[in-house]
């Protein structure tokens, strides 16, 4: 990628880059990935967001993009767009996340970043 003549090449633009062998096994999806996928699908189906908005938000992740998993990228993109559209506030989201995390009953609190660094 360092040799790319394209100055504006985004992190998603990897077609043609050198890369290693392909793991041809399909590793399937965890339950949360299935939820995240269905959620993305329904937000577009219900015309709450459009695919291009999500793509733009994902591409804006820049250097983080290559380090995030697929559904982390889509979830982050949906969050960005829904906040922009003011469908909920950051405060509402944080409150809801705290409620949901409590339901999971995470055994070791030190593992929860929410306990260490309150999100803005």
């Amino acid at each position, binding site marked *: 990628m360092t040799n790319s003549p394209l100055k504006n090449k985004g992190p998603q*633009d*990897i*077609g*043609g*880059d*050198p*890369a*290693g062998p*392909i*793991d*041809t*096994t*399909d*590793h399937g999806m*965890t*339950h*949360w990935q*299935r*939820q*995240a996928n*269905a*959620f993305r*699908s*329904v937000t*577009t*189906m*219900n015309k*709450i967001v459009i*695919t*291009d908005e999500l*793509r733009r938000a994902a591409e*804006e*992740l820049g*250097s*983080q993009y*290559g*380090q995030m998993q*697929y559904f*982390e990228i889509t*979830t*982050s993109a*949906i*969050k960005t767009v*829904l906040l922009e559209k003011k*469908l*909920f506030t950051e405060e509402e*989201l944080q409150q*809801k*996340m705290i*409620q*949901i*995390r409590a339901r*999971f009953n*995470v055994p070791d609190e030190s*593992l*929860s*970043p*929410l306990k260490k660094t309150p*999100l*803005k």
Partner: protein
Amino acid sequence: MKKTSFDIHAPGNAHHDHHDHVHDHDHDEHAPVNEHDNGPPNDYEIMSRAMQELLEEKGYIKPGQIAKRMEEFDEQFPFRGAQVVARAWVDPAFKARLLADGRAACLELGTILEAERLIAVENTPDVHNVIVCTLCSCYPRSLLGMPPSWYKSRNYRSRVVFEPRAVLKEFGTALAEDVTIRVHDSNADMRYLVIPMRPHGTEGWSEEKLSQILSRDTLVGVTVPSITNH
């Protein structure tokens, strides 16, 4: 560069072990390091559920809509592509319509596609077609279900466009040197579906039986249908 407020994963935090492997992002879709179902939920999982509940409470999403969609992705979508192509194999008029306007032809069989256009590309003795989405993971999901891990992987997206023959070999598909390989790069508005060549020895087979040799991989074009074991 935009920084999201979610950038809170501290390197060295065992819980977010996979985020530390910056050098290892070629494997970003590869389990088991990504699996969280057996451990504490990660922040994105919590966030995704939180957004779902907020939109349900505010009436943007109907209760049950997400569950229904998950079910469709599991139980319906993965089988539709094979049904469409099996129909094309037995019905030349349908195949002509599928090649002319994929979206309209799928609608005949009751499938509404997410994207505006579906372009069906037909393999012949001289030309083999392969699908990719180099920019993300555009894929005819309502025909094939979710894209497999490798379709979303950096290595497939990067390489299939410039060395498709080598990539196909990694899937166990060796094509003759004189066969042209066409790689089709999908996007948000336009999806592709490969119509493989119908194997010899399938004459007289029902659509149902034919659909069983039309695996997802054959419809993406990384393998070709075979009647071994059928």
